[in-house]
């Protein structure tokens, strides 16, 4: 088998990475998401990170559940195998794939509905199992693909702060991941390429379960009561009884702010979220400190971004299982089948 890439002919001025691939080699087919959707920015960041890391595209496997976010693997890494599985169950499918071949890089892409609602159990268990992967949640607080119902994560776009629960207690996936044993846990914002790309690169380098919760505004569904400002116009003009059938393209939100700084980001619907970028002060090696930080920020309504927790001393799933170093899918009869003689001995023991 040849693992070396074979880039097609291209203009010499296009930048290539150490493998000789261009950024285009890490792209996928055209996005069918709404114009301005945060998810597309994340796709771009992943493409960027993989290009810069010079990952051989065919050595990446990309897996997802169901949702707008879970569609994005089609839009990236066209030379990688992908698996758009079923809703909320990507973690188990990815785990199985990882069991079969420990040598590939695994990228799991999910949404907040996919992960925090239907998939919460599998999310928790894949974290505690220490599956080596990069698990990204493209977190918009709604179910995009089914047209805007609330999901179980924080109603980040909501203006209301203290005591403002979107009906039920929001789920903080980063805090859960830390508590459940993920060894690389970060949070970022879809439009913050400056922060997201390095985080992604670090996550791909991590030897265990890496989780990144990426806030990713849904430009189309903004169900936050009292924050319908920019959509009023369209809503009013709508004749259909049913939901929105008019969606205007928006510019994706892009931000750039310094470590340690706070930033208020206005979402497409006019709501504001408050981000705070972690700085060197934050001791990401202290699990309790990370949890406390998240808890305190929850109280103040700020969203900390950056690397929240890292444990480099990882025992990942294959370590725990004591699996052979070779990919299991490459083993043959010789290694796998004990043969007729052994069977005769087994027969003898059963008489």
């Amino acid at each position, binding site marked *: *088998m*040849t693992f*070396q890439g*074979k880039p*097609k002919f291209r203009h010499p001025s296009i930048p290539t990475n150490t493998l000789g691939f261009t950024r285009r080699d890490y792209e996928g087919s055209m996005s069918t998401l709404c114009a301005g959707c945060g998810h597309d920015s994340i796709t771009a960041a992943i493409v960027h990170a993989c290009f810069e890391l010079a990952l051989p*595209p*065919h050595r990446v*496997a990309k*897996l997802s559940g169901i949702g707008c976010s879970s569609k994005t693997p*089609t839009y990236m890494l066209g*030379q*990688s*195998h*992908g*698996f*758009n*599985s*079923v809703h909320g*169950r990507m*973690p*188990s*499918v*990815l*785990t*199985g*794939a990882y*069991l*079969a*071949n420990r*040598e*590939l890089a695994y990228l799991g892409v999910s949404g907040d509905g996919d992960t925090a609602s239907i998939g919460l*159990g*599998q999310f928790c*268990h894949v974290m505690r199992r220490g599956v080596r992967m990069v698990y990204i949640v493209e977190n918009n607080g709604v179910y995009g693909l089914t047209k805007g119902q609330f999901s179980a994560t924080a109603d980040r776009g909501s203006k209301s702060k203290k005591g403002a629960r979107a009906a039920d207690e929001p789920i903080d996936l980063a805090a859960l991941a830390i508590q459940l044993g993920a060894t690389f846990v970060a949070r970022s914002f879809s439009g913050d390429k400056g922060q997201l790309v390095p985080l992604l690169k670090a996550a791909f380098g991590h030897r265990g379960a890496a989780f990144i919760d990426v806030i990713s505004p849904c430009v189309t569904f903004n169900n936050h009561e009292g924050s319908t400002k920019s959509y009023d116009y369209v809503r009013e003009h709508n004749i259909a009884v049913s939901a929105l059938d008019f969606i205007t393209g928006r510019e994706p939100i892009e931000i750039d702010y310094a470590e340690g700084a706070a930033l208020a980001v206005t979402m497409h619907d006019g709501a504001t979220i408050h981000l705070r970028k972690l700085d060197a002060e934050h001791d990401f090696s202290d699990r309790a400190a990370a949890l406390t930080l998240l808890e305190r920020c929850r109280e103040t309504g700020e969203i900390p971004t950056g690397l929240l927790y890292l444990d480099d001393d990882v025992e990942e*799933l*294959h370590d725990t*299982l*004591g*699996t*052979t*170093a070779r*990919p*299991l*899918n490459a*083993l*043959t*009869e010789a*290694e*796998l*089948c*004990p*043969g*007729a003689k*052994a*069977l*005769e001995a*087994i*027969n003898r023991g*059963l*008489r």
Partner: protein
Amino acid sequence: MPIEATNDFVIRFANVNGSGSASANLLFAKAILRMGAPIAPRNIFPSNIQGLPTWYEVRVSERGFLGARGGGADMLVAMNAQTFAQDVAALSVGGYLFYDSTRPLPPTMTRGDIAVIGMPLTELCAARYSDPRQRQLYRNMAYVGALAALLDIEVGVLEELIAERFKGKDKLIEANARALRLGFDDAKTRFACPLGLRVRRSEAVGDRILVEGNYASALGALYGGATVCAWYPITPSTSVAESFERLAGRYRVDPATGGKNVAIVQAEDEIAAIGMVVGAGWNGARAFTATSGPGVSLMQEFFGLAYFAEVPVVVVDVQRGGPSTGMPTRTQQSDLILCAFASHGDTKHVLLIPDGPGEAFEFTAAAFDLAERLQTPVFVMLDLDIGMNSHLTEPFRWDDERLYDRGKVLSPRQLDEIVEFGRYKDVDGDGVPYRTLPGGHPTLGAYFTRGTSRDRYARYTEDPAPYVDNMERLALKFETARRLAPAPVLTSAGAPAPIGIVHFGSTAAAMDEALALLADAGLAADALRIRAFPLSPDIAGFVRAHERVFVVEQNRDAQMKTLMTSDLGLDPADLTSILHFGGSPITARFIADAVAARLKPAAAPPILEDVT
């Protein structure tokens, strides 16, 4: 008159679970086996851990009739006060009651038409052992000794078995042998040994082995090259995964590195288990799960994905009494329809239906070939009777020349050579497309797997034409499966017979005897054993070739009959159901009686064709 029989009787042990009796009873059964007499031991156990009634029945049958016999036992070893009365009531006329006579038996608790054999077991052990646990364990060993004397079992064989079991632990060997002797000697002095029931050395067993179907299935997975097993505990399937784990610990450790050539994960539930299997199958490993009804229900969505995305998957379904939690420790064949049509939308799945541990081994190994050849889920349909009871079986065989059929996987080299790769193109006209594995070729062959409709090149589409094209190919693939699946097995009456009996799975154990009973009654019948779904056209031929066809099933709703009419287009009016679904294994008597009753011209069939 006490029953007189040699190598042809049923002995039933009534115990309390968690009392250590299982080990003693197994020892007893194995001794008879070692003497060469065919046995069929069966456990009837509760769905709890300790303190409830449990029964162990050993049928000894020189003629080799190894299904549950039905009717009362010929001898009862009554070690459970809770069920004493009901157990005694169920003893055959002329049967033998063996009980612990430490406390006297009230006269109301026995019967005039049986022989009563009391031995003060507790007293005997109390005198010898002070530790209460020792008392109990050795009491079990003592009754085995007593039975050896009563039934003429060679005590040397028992000693040999004990020595094998505790090899290297001489103290334990000695202690157990002593307890055995205690019972043996006491019985010899107390009773006229042997009784009318006797065990005699025989050649009837031959080289057959005694083994549980779940273990056999696990062994099949081992030989079949399974490298990923993801599972969740559930009775009666747990011992498939646990046996596989034990076998892998022995046969799958790389001698050089100590690394394991296998990955076994106890998942958080059945959905995760099947998800892992799907992920592993997609990524080129041979992967399986073992479960039972509730697990199959939970896995439905993934079965649909695997069917539609065409991912090889092996599922061992050890069927138990349904519906819902039902009777977790009882046997049934009632998951057929759910498995055959698993998941929403138009789906059909391949089922392999072994008749016992022998085929459980073969079919589980074959399931991996089939699943990869067909790129689809394959179900191995065991049941509790096959899976958790030990059955006398031909020894397992394996041809060292046999290679795994990994199906149509394009290597990177092949990708370089072919003109065009279309993941869902039917290149060979058999409905089975080619696939590639992640990580193979650096620039060719990557495709996107999904549960949504797509064209032949794996591109997402919502057009009707490619959707229909794809669905028709899947239907064609199912016809390919029909050709590849194991053919039914005919047991011919010899002379032309007007009666045909269709059966499958664990019913086989009772079928030879049922045919013999029917033949004795002048009713010659051919029997056809179905071994797979999709169904072979031979089954339709068999139905047409017989005047009256019975379909014997261990479920209420005649599920196989539904499959036969649906899959083969047979007329349900041509199929008479014989249904047994009380949770105990079907018996030859039940089958023979039911066939005979339905052949009586007067008997109008009841609406619901079942009997307890």
